[in-house]
């Protein structure tokens, strides 16, 4: 059942931020939503990598699609690159949300937990941002 819900991927430059955001989603929303996070470079510093984002997308993959929440710059461009590297049939089912990473992740997951479509999940996360 839970695999029918849109998955959430959290991409931060910091593994602490990414893991903490995922903790908030798990505790506040629950585990009906596939969830994965990635952050930091392999040496433990700040950064994002296309490879780990690809892994997170696989982990949170759902037939309903995946919504990605990002923090700054590279998190977004590397996420875009990761989407481009997906098989074609997956690409249209992955959306990067233009929303604050923590708040957006909780909002998106709440919406996803009710079985909403990827479009609605993204709109809900983006509803937060000022016009």
């Amino acid at each position, binding site marked *: 059942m839970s695999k029918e819900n849109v998955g959430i991927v959290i991409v931060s430059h910091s593994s602490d931020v990414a893991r903490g955001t995922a903790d908030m989603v798990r*505790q*506040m*929303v*629950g*585990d009906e939503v596939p969830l994965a996070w990635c952050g930091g470079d392999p040496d433990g510093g700040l950064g994002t990598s296309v490879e780990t984002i690809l892994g997170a997308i696989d982990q949170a993959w759902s037939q309903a699609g995946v919504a990605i929440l990002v923090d700054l710059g590279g998190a977004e461009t590397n996420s875009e690159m990761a989407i481009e590297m997906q098989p074609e049939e997956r690409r249209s089912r992955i959306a990067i949300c233009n929303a604050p990473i923590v708040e957006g992740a*909780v*909002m998106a997951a*709440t*919406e996803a*937990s*009710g*079985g909403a479509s990827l479009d609605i999940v993204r709109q*809900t996360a983006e*509803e*937060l941002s000022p016009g």
Partner: protein
Amino acid sequence: MTHAVGLHARPSVKLTKLAKTFGCTVELAISNEGPWIDAKSIVKVMGTKAPKDTVLFFRASGDDEDAALTALVELVERDFDEGSEEAANA
């Protein structure tokens, strides 16, 4: 509503998730004259920022409206099951 922190993040998520389990429309207001907001919208519910001791008004319309209202009022009366995660996730 007697919950200590009011309609903040966690209670809002619980209320919204519960509202979404019903097919009927469910609306919420902090005055019996409205404005009424969609109780299934997490952004709007959290946006009410209703503090402790706020009286919440619910209205629902549809096949399961009675069950929805009963369940939502019970959730608020139980202080949103805070401290009892298991019950909330059941």
